[in-house]
């Protein structure tokens, strides 16, 4: 019976590892300037985690195979080196492994969060509400109009609560339902939650950041590949959570300018 356990466990461990090694299901292609650091970190971690996983499972299977239901009247033996050896091994191996992962991982993290956005980054405001994202470009004046929550009127498509009647800066703000950005240009995305918590997640962009009501956060990124990508909400926000999405449209500069013109005319 112990042998059966060993066989089943070995099969499980090996089969589990196959899709990982084959990259059958893996992260989508990275389209961001910073994402390669995250991808490398992922591969690094996967190698270490995969090794730990296989080593432990196979060792467990092997020991159970060898030492279960022993017919021989053999003596109890002790693992060479005993507890001290194992504890030392754990400290040294896992300690250095974790320290390495930790230190390397910080670099990837730092590229996302510790670098300030470039001064000429495209300024966009993202607003998340149940259950849609809206985006706002400052328009010709380069300034965003102020937000007045009491002025929000979605039936009149005033999603942000702008006050164009009294606020000049708000009049040329361009509000859209998709996030269009020019390729290879840094984007400074300022995040505002209208009602409850939401999150901004673009898999290809290697960006995920919560919208926290009352706390205006920001992320910045540079997309290096044109295309349409899905923006999804990853923070449970209510019954339409699974339907809360928008598209990230990475365009060439010309297309972007064209798009911007078109959107400005629709305001």
């Amino acid at each position: 019976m112990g042998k059966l356990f060993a066989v089943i466990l070995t099969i499980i461990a090996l089969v589990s590892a196959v899709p990982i090694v084959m990259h059958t299901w893996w992260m989508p292609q990275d389209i961001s300037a910073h994402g390669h650091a995250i991808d490398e970190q992922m591969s690094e971690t996967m190698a270490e985690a995969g090794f730990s996983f296989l080593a432990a499972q196979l060792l467990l299977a092997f020991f159970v195979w060898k030492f279960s239901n022993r017919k021989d009247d053999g003596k109890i033996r002790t693992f060479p080196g005993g507890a001290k050896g194992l504890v030392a091994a754990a400290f040294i191996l896992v300690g250095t492994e974790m320290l390495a992962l930790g230190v390397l991982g910080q670099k990837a993290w730092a590229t996302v969060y510790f670098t300030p956005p470039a001064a000429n980054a495209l300024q966009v405001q993202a607003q998340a509400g149940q259950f849609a994202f809206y985006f706002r470009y400052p328009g010709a004046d380069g300034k965003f109009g102020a937000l007045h929550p009491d002025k929000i009127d979605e039936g009149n498509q005033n999603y942000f609560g702008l006050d164009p009647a009294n606020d000049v800066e708000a009049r040329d703000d361009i509000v859209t339902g998709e996030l269009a950005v020019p390729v290879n240009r840094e984007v400074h995305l300022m995040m505002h939650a209208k009602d409850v918590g939401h999150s901004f997640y673009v898999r290809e962009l290697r960006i995920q950041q919560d919208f926290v009501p009352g706390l205006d956060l920001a992320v910045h990124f540079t997309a290096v590949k044109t295309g349409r990508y899905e923006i999804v909400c990853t923070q449970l926000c209510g019954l339409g959570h699974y339907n809360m999405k928008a598209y990230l449209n990475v365009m060439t500069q010309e297309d972007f300018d064209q798009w911007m013109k078109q959107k400005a005319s629709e305001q």
Partner: protein
Amino acid sequence: MRSKHVFMAGVAVLAAAAMAVAAPSGGTISGKVTYEGTPAKQKVIDMSKEPSCAKQYTTPPTGEAVVTGAGNSLHNVVVYISAGAPDGGSAPAQAVTFTQKGCRYIPHVAVLQVNQELKVVNEDQTSHNIHPLAKANREWNKSQPPGSPAISEKFDKEEFIPVKCNVHPWMHGTFAVLKTSHYAVTGDSGGFTLPNLPPGKYTITAWHESYGTQTQDVTITGGETKSVNFVFKAKAY
């Protein structure tokens, strides 16, 4: 015989009811709803979030908070008798259908009588949620994924209930729950007609979702047709 009296009374009531229905002998109030000034420009609806809806339109649709027509006519105004008429009695058996199609509400304003059945239908390939922001009535908020059966609901109090879809925030409409059966919603021409009014003094109310309500008093003496017009002041923002 007691039962005979009851029978006779029943016949009388039935006859009276039949006469009321059969003889369009009452007066009529008709008129037109218009606006003055410049209404706010209705923006193009950005449906990029929902490609399955966006592709149903060749020219992108615009918002429906203020819909106007030729001759300054104002659409989607509910004109109804708010005082003077007897209550509509029991609600009509026929349900009012409220359809979600192309991520818009059809009709934009659905008029119901108190306790009349409302059937909400989703003809889109996406999920909607129907969220009537009721105050006097019981508020509810239900999802309707594509292919789900119609949602059947009733409202038991008079109220203009804004209804919205949280999944598609541009979708805004109104459930106008009225006590009376005498109502009309202005369409293309901005005109309305309230027929079959027995003689009496009436208060006519016109309600528009952005411009509010106006009332006028009208007296009907016989079978005449009275003309009543409403003019709303448009707001640029």
